[in-house]
């Protein structure tokens, strides 16, 4: 999407209405809204909504969360799933212990709790830079998994340490059906995308990028590096907290500490790198890759009907090999991530429109 904004706007009588970036952008946003709220709920089957579209959107949102921290502010997190689990467990306890709270308030409070935790685990960023920062968030990953497993209070003393989704409703509207859960997810996501764009285009976002590109220069220019870094952790974790609630309540229906394990954190990292660093919409491409690849591989293996692969364990392992190989392949072949595809597509489209 950046290309649309990076190009010099054509002004004057020669600028055609179809090539005007502002018009194009508005058209794009309006089309997205119509597709997301009108077309998709009308035509998608329950299977598509529950198994493909909802997880893709939620994981894309997780990608945006990490991309704000990593792509824009240049900080590292290896424990995204920990902040998601903080979100879902806070939301569960808020609904349990204060049933009067409406869903939007619960979501915001869950996000804020995760943000507070994020600031704490971001504190080492004030002393160190680079990959080593991963240790602190990796610690968060293991700490919260331990916390939610060892203290049953968080899951209302349930035997299995599992929390199940409360009744999802929004001022009386029932959101339990696949379409209802989809609308909840897509509304929250749309609002957060808007928020993410505001942040990225604001002074805060520009200062993050200045810190990422050259911290010394940024601080010389008067950027308050320390507080900006903590704000990056806070906002990223706020997003992740809400994402965690959506993943547990709107997609899975139940959650426990292991839902948000290290694999999930790595998936979020993959989404950012495969989708493209410092992009917003690229994350959904990365998420689609993460969600769809295992499903496609499943179908592929089943339809190939290879006799000696009857063992489910063998199939799972074959999938691991293929998945790992695809990831290495994409990292090698597409350094800017899959969002480079859309950028190229958009450029080709513009070139055609101009002629």
């Amino acid at each position, binding site marked *: 999407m950046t290309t649309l904004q990076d190009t010099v706007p054509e002004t004057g009588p020669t600028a055609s209405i179809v090539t005007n970036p502002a018009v194009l952008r508005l058209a794009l946003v309006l089309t997205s809204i119509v597709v997301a709220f009108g077309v998709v709920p009308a035509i998608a089957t329950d299977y598509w909504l529950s198994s493909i579209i909802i997880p893709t959107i939620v994981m894309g949102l997780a990608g945006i969360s990490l991309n704000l921290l*990593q792509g824009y502010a240049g900080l*590292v997190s290896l424990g995204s799933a920990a902040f998601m689990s903080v979100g879902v467990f806070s939301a569960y306890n808020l609904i349990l212990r204060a049933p009067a709270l409406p869903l939007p308030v619960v979501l915001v409070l869950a996000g804020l709790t995760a943000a507070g935790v994020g600031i704490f685990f971001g504190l*080492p*960023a*004030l*002393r*160190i*830079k*680079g*990959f*080593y920062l*991963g*240790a*602190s968030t*990796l*610690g968060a990953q*293991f*700490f919260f*998994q*331990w916390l939610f*497993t*060892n*203290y049953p209070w968080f899951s209302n003393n349930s035997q299995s340490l599992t929390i199940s989704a409360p009744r999802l409703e929004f001022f009386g509207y029932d959101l339990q059906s696949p379409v209802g859960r989809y609308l909840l997810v897509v509304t929250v996501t749309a609002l957060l995308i808007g928020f993410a764009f505001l942040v990225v285009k604001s002074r805060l976002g520009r200062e993050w990028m200045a810190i990422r590109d050259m*911290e010394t220069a940024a601080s010389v220019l008067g950027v308050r*590096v*320390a507080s900006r870094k903590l704000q990056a952790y806070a906002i990223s974790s706020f997003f992740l907290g809400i994402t965690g609630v959506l993943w547990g309540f709107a997609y899975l229906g139940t959650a426990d500490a292991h839902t948000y394990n*290290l694999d999930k954190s*790595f998936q979020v*990292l*993959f989404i950012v*790198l495969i989708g493209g660093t410092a992009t917003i919409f690229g994350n959904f491409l990365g998420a689609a890759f993460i969600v769809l690849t295992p499903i496609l591989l499943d179908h592929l293996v089943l339809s190939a009907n290879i006799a000696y692969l009857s063992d489910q*364990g*063998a199939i799972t*392992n*074959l*999938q*691991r*090999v293929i*998945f*790992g*190989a*695809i*990831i*290495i392949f994409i*990292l*090698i072949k597409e*350094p800017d991530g899959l969002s480079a595809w859309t950028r190229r597509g958009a450029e080709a489209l513009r070139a055609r429109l101009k002629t």
Partner: protein
Amino acid sequence: MAYFFETLIAGLFAGLMYGLVAIGFVLIYKASGVFNFAQGAMVFLAALVFVTLVEHGIHFWVAFAATSALMVLTAVAIEALVLRPLRNRDPLTLFMATLGLSFVIDGATQFFLGTDVHMLDVGIDDIADDYGGLFISRFDIIASLIVIALVAVLAIVFSKTRMGVSLRAVADDTLAAQSIGIRLPVIWRIVWSVAGIVALVAGLLWGARQGVQYSLSLVTLKALPVLIIGGFSSIPGAITGGLFVGAGEALADIYLGPLVGGSVSTWFAYILAVAFLLVRPAGLFGDRDIERV
């Protein structure tokens, strides 16, 4: 008090094993700047191949040689297929590539050799001997002697041989090393091969203790705190860091665990590492080139 010392010693021996895995990281990190997440997968691959060969009646040392050869082949393949196309990319991309690599190695290993847990007997009895009131396992003592011998051999190789000096030149200044004719791809192949053989030794010692199974692969996760404490670029540091983490975990489990209701060993190492990062960012033995704020 004897209980304290036995816990401490058991922790130190576990730490030596962490250190052994961490050595593989240090070698690769020094030569190519990659945090190799696949090191644990290499430990698992080497141990499972070795144990499968031995179970098919192949002599111990023949199996050792064959597995070593396989690790060298793996190293050459990784250099050609992953490292070379990704050279000059940022560390996070390289890390993610090794994460993908760990999927490939773990998946392929279990696809071809199965997911069963194998018992591995390396011919050392795991009996506790009495040393003036302290019971210490004979296996632990011999295993730590093996680790010490391995570290000594590596230290001699890296300080005395031409290859070792080339490696240190690459680690010190890659561009200068290349300009005097050191071939980077060759160094990478050698280093990944050595890391593969270190992984084999680690896999045999861990595997003899816990059985050869997938969890060997997860040892990787403990390597990050070990390396932060010891320093990313020092082999003695890797061992010391391992000892710190091993002893810290064992003692924390005994004395801190009951207070907070449960084993703390999953996360204690990271808290220790973060404390070290705040106080001594380069680790105990590392080069002082870590970017500080």
